[in-house]
């Protein structure tokens, strides 16, 4: 499928908002792939971290928001620690999660969680999980 790229898309309001909420300049990424090379959660992601940035650069924000990758980012900071351009990818992922939840509601339905298993979890796991997966 051929994707149309246009100025409206590349400079869309969505890209601007992601940059604003994340405080990051997405054009700083030159796609060396080091984030993707070291991401500890990449094997459960449908797109590599650098591909998420690429979609934002292309203005295809909707596709980035549909990706499961943003929900599998654990904000471990490994990518940011090694990024040669200092792109704070965890912040970009956070902005995408926020935007996704603004558009589509919470990512996690608390009612559908395995209560028995959850009883085992440390408190901070819920708090962190709810903060990441609910608006």
């Amino acid at each position, binding site marked *: 499928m051929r994707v149309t790229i246009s100025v409206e898309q590349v400079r869309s309001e969505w890209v601007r908002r992601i940059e604003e909420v*994340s405080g990051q300049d997405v054009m700083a990424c030159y796609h060396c792939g080091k984030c993707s090379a070291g991401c500890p*959660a990449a094997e459960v992601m449908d797109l590599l971290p650098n591909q998420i940035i690429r979609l934002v650069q292309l203005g295809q924000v909707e596709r980035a928001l549909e990706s499961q990758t943003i929900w599998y980012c*654990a904000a471990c900071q490994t990518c940011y620690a090694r990024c040669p351009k200092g792109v704070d990818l*965890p*912040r970009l992922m*956070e902005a995408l999660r926020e935007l996704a939840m603004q558009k589509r509601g919470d990512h996690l339905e608390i009612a559908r969680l395995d209560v028995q298993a959850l009883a085992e979890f*440390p408190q901070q796991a819920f708090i*962190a999980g709810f903060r990441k997966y609910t608006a």
Partner: protein
Amino acid sequence: MRYFYFPGCTLETKAVGFNRSAKDAAGALGVELVTLPEWNCCGATFPLSTDNVLDLAGPARNLVSTAEAGGDTLAVACATCFNVLRRTNHFLRNNPETLEKLNAFLERPQPYAGQVEVRHLLDIFVHDIGLEAIRQCAVPGLRGLRAAAYYGCMLLRPAAEIALDDPERPDIMDQLLAALGAEVVDYPHRGECCGAYLTVKSPEASMPMSYRILSAAERAGAHVLATACPLCQFNLDWLQARLRQQYASYRPLPVLYFTQLMGLAFGLDTSGYGFEQHYVDPRPVLTQAGVLGEVKAP
């Protein structure tokens, strides 16, 4: 030495063994940990979006409370709380406008000016007490125990803000464990992520992440893995039952808080350390290594 101490939610509930052993170990080294009056939850994650200043109010309130109580240091045992509080403090110090907003919001008599230092117990033990004093206190010590220090994310990154150790080659916990008499094993994944809160949504995502760390430490010959984070401890411990099903050759590895190992090394009463609550019971390994007395029959 006396410090205000921030226990955090998990240490008061699920990780009481961490809390107990942290206070015990500190006490044995002459460090008095005074629980911060009216502490509140740190928020469990550092807010990463720029438009969410209010999320900083929670962690900031603890810093304000410390300053109001006359403290210049807030000592933290939980690596996650440490990370959130320290990053918050760093952010406030470098963003005067946000600090002003938060001060207005918190409406406390004295505005906060970033004067409190958030420090992890590892830092206090190794740098304020010193390895030599720890070595002297380590009777009977941990001779015979091979330990792998696990740092995870929260003690290391982002390095410019956390500034506890080299994020790629950390060794502060290794130094401490060695001072306790343990044989410290080298393995490559001491700073890899265990899966953190991903486990809430999808344990299957955290499994390969925790497996990577555990199997590397086990292959390096570790008897136990030492951690400073209750969520890491949980993931690395709880997931092992699933890992055993998934990987045929999987060998379980007990996961302990570094302070539990300090208590053992110092010969303290470890009955309140909650060893029995660990999913992978550390007692047989600790007994076998000769650092824990015979486990009494229940």
